[in-house]
């Protein structure tokens, strides 16, 4: 008798608990589980890419709800991204701007159809205007036309330009350090581009002789 009563109570409690969660499904969790059932590793694009880091998760949530990040959270996330920015291993931020156009034009890399060892591009023109000549540019990001000129950079190697040079490196390396939910990829931190490529792009943006500043 007592045993039956106990079992009945336990079952009722379980049913009631179930009822309490119906209609309040954790869609976020369900979506993530759905992703792992829906995708498979192909080439270099492995399923672990579906794991979000904290900033990806926070920005997805904020964007979906049409809200800005909480100020404290934003500050913490940006600081954490800032901490990932490493200077070039030889301390020289400026590369060869003559090699940069190729990097800016190429959208190759990081996708499942790219073989390991592919030279990645930055695909800068997908989102940004950069030079007078290239009219096939996107508008997802702000125009970078005359980037160095506008900022008054006349000699990128001078002490006067040091701060701007390091800022430019920082933006390319990890744009999320400056704006947590920017759409710009973290080219240095997540290894989309090599150190050399990043240096070439810094020069491309800042050198007065670069087509960006004509």
């Amino acid at each position, binding site marked *: 008798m007592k045993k039956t009563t106990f079992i009945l109570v336990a079952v009722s409690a379980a049913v009631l608990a179930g009822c309490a969660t119906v209609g309040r499904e954790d869609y976020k969790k369900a979506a993530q589980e759905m992703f792992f059932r829906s995708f498979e590793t192909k080439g270099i694009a492995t399923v672990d*890419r579906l*794991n979000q880091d904290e900033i990806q998760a926070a920005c997805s949530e904020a964007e979906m709800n049409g809200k800005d990040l909480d100020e404290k959270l934003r500050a913490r996330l940006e600081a954490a991204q*800032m901490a990932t920015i490493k200077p070039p291993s030889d301390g020289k931020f400026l590369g060869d701007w003559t090699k940069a156009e190729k990097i800016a034009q190429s959208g190759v890399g*990081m996708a499942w159809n790219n073989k390991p060892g592919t030279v990645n591009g930055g695909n800068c023109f997908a989102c940004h205007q950069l030079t007078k000549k290239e009219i096939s*540019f996107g508008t997802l990001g702000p125009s970078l036309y005359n980037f160095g000129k506008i900022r008054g950079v006349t000699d990128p190697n001078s002490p006067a330009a040091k701060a701007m040079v390091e*800022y430019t490196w920082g933006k390319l390396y990890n744009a999320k350090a400056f704006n947590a939910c920017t759409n710009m990829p973290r080219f240095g931190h997540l290894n989309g581009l090599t150190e050399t490529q990043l240096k070439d792009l810094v020069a491309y943006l800042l050198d007065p002789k670069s087509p960006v500043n004509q």
Partner: protein
Amino acid sequence: MITSNLKVLGCVVAAGMLSTGPALAQSEAEKAIDQYREMIADGNPADLWEAKGEELWKKKAGPKNTSLEQCDLGFGPGVLKGVYVQLPRYFADAGKVMDLEMRLSYCMRTLQGKDVKDAEYNKGDHKDIISLATYVVTQSKGMPVNVPQDHPEEKRMYELGKQAFFYRAGPYDFSCATCHNADDKRIRLQGLPNLTKNGPAGRAFTSWPAYRVSNSQLWPMQQRLNDCLRLQRFPHPKFGSEATVALSVYMGVNGKGVPSLAPTIKR
């Protein structure tokens, strides 16, 4: 080494920036693109796939030597008119929400007894699915998008599709929203519809299947999503997977009421 003082410096400069560069060249390029679109709209090679699709729909095939004419695409066996604008939807016999391609694959399997090979774009049975899909969508041309949200599973797929749409992941941190959550943006010279808004969502939703001039291929929606996800640097979406159907539901529901364009012609 890199301090947050630089962040302030950057913000100040960015705020002061006003120039958007040589704007005149930009509008000339866009004018040329509009002219190009007008030119290619006159005669759509998708007609060839549509004709092939009609043939396949009526042809007896597979171990059961049956046509697809009894296939239920949502309005009962064999009904074609208006079904495309009400897909994806929940199908009780399959126990899940299916899009058009999934449902065609299902009918090929259950009615015709085929061991359907549909995992790869335009290979095996998927070749036929492309043609069949093109045939079916033509029967809904001009009809208003009306993706159902009656069944709990349909509602659930909308919510999961929404989560998926905003899900930033991978080495570029891209989500669908990265490109498709704003007005008047483009990638290179390709305009990007804001898929959170009714008009653009409905037009985009009913733009696929489309004949793509640039690679002479007919792309149904699954292939369009596949290629988006490739460039988002995601891993590979399985054909007809839940995530792809959920995204379709999200787009379709957002696009409610918009007159169907499919099949279209694209660059």
